[in-house]
């Protein structure tokens, strides 16, 4: 009962949020929240640490952008193309990476994503260092004008809520239970007769596709795709979001995404304020030192705070 109430409250909050906050920032947060949830499906519920999720997120952003801008596809088909691309790349990268276990799996995803980064860097359609600019938003189902930020926000919200519901459904399905078994004890899952490789591969493709969906929507919302989105630092960022919020919790990644994106956006202001208060000139450059701060959060989280915010809360409440 209280859980249903909680879900309703969050949903209501999201419905009125764009009247209080800047809709584009909210949409960006929603996209990253889905990205982190997709990533969490692997690390939190299957026990696989992928360090290559930027390839799906940024890659789908490029493909969707290109499909909308150059092929003139409508909004829905553009998003679908990007998502399918991510699923396909996920199938290839996942298929190669699950041939090794543990830390090697992570290194392989990182290396293959880096290869894709170079491909996108050199491919003519991505615009190289300048990125893919001025992606049109177009119309939903041919009638609803998405150029209005508020309309776009509700469309994005609908996509995100549906995807989140899908993730929740998957986690609680028999399939999700097998994934958990793989996470807890892989040899045992094998000996129980489950084809672990197939489950891992399917989880990887699902996670990649959802990460791609997030990237596609982000590209449409902001109107551009850049190399930053395919770079490994983006893969690191999504790991951090999940870690901060709580790996293996449902809402942890969402909370982590909110915190990290807010931090990225507000760090410059915080630095300016600190410079004013403490009269240390260096704080003014804090806005440019985002990587340093994210690194610091990483170290603190890993050393002292491994369950993340939600994980910590759940552990305390029990």
């Amino acid at each position: 009962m209280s859980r249903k109430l909680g879900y309703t409250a969050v949903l209501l909050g999201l419905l009125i949020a764009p009247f209080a906050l800047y809709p584009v920032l909210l949409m960006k947060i929603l996209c990253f929240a889905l990205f982190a949830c997709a990533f969490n499906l692997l690390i939190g519920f299957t026990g696989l640490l992928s360090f290559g999720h930027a390839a799906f997120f940024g890659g789908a952003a490029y493909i969707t952008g290109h499909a909308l801008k150059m092929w003139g596809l409508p909004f829905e088909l553009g998003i679908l193309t990007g998502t399918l691309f991510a699923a396909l790349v996920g199938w290839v990268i996942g298929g190669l990476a699950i041939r090794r276990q543990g830390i090697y799996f992570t290194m392989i995803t990182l290396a293959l994503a880096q290869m894709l980064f170079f491909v996108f860097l050199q491919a003519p359609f991505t615009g190289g260092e300048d990125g893919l600019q001025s992606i049109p938003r177009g119309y939903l189902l041919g009638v609803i004008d998405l150029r209005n930020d508020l309309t776009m926000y509700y469309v994005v919200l609908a996509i995100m809520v549906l995807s989140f519901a899908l993730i929740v459904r998957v986690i609680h399905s028999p399939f999700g239970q097998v994934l958990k078994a793989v996470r807890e004890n892989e040899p045992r899952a094998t000996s129980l007769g489950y084809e672990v490789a197939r489950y891992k591969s399917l989880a990887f493709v699902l996670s990649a596709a959802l990460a791609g969906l997030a990237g596609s929507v982000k590209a449409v919302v902001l109107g551009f795709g850049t190399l930053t989105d395919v770079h490994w630092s983006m893969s690191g960022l999504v790991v951090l979001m999940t870690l901060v919020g709580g790996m293996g919790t449902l809402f942890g990644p969402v909370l982590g995404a909110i915190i990290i994106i807010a931090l990225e956006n507000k760090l410059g202001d915080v630095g300016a304020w600190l410079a004013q208060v403490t009269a240390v000139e260096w704080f003014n450059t804090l806005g440019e030192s985002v990587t340093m701060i994210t690194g610091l959060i990483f170290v603190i989280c890993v050393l002292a705070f491994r369950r993340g915010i939600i994980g910590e809360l759940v552990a305390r409440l029990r």
Partner: protein
Amino acid sequence: MEIFGIPLAAFLGQLLLGLVNGSFYAMLSLGLAVIFGLLNVINFAHGALYMMGAFLAWMGLQYFGISYWVMLLLAPLMIALFGMVIERSMLRWLYQLDHLYGLLLTFGVTLIIEGVFRSFYGVSGQPFAVPPQLAGATDLGFMMLPIYRAWVVVASLVVCLVTWFVIEKTRLGAYLRAGTENPRMVEAFGINVPLMVTLTYGFGVALAAFAGVLAAPVLQVSPLMGSNLIVTIFAVVVIGGMGSILGSIVTGLALGVIEGLTKVFYPELSSTVVFIIMAIVLLVRPAGLFGREK
């Protein structure tokens, strides 16, 4: 004289450049393998520490007028010290946990180090002159040999082979290998394993710093020089497998050469060739060329 339509001098020049890069790959993947063997930690910070090594050499010359030769010894020592502080203060607490936390921690450390250097030096490269003793080139008749590049290859090979000798043929190395196999047993024989772990981490990152100083005059000294390299090193490690010291060295050198030759014959592929080879190796021999299946 030409080879497949490429002038021989240009071909040999790229071959040498490939060997130079291969030497860096070899030294870095060797350090990574030694650390992983004993600590079970994939040291993401390896690239950042390599970058710090190069920067220390540059700073020594720039601010204090300390010569390249002194820094070639001093920088690895300083980085070893720095690494040992990291190991004692942070990594130590993660050994009982899943290996992925070690990777995440060193990833965070990488971001901090890079962020600090970027906030001071920006992203552009700092030029570093080749030391006067090694400047210029000798004429071998069929090609001009830049002396510094030859020095890099020779110095790295010597360091790699000495490392191999120490680990495989000496008593100290025997302790280390035993520690890799069964640390508790080694401890029971009265060997201070925690100290050995700290020293091993220090030694591994010192190798990275040594490579960094060697690289300073060849590549530009920039805060980003380590971050792209580390991903390639990971691919090298996956290809070679971390089971064998000589394997790491050979794989590193070979991939450097292959990358160099790709630059000659098909430049578009030069930045991705290592990853393609990794994909093929995973398909054919998942444990890596020199790796053992667990």
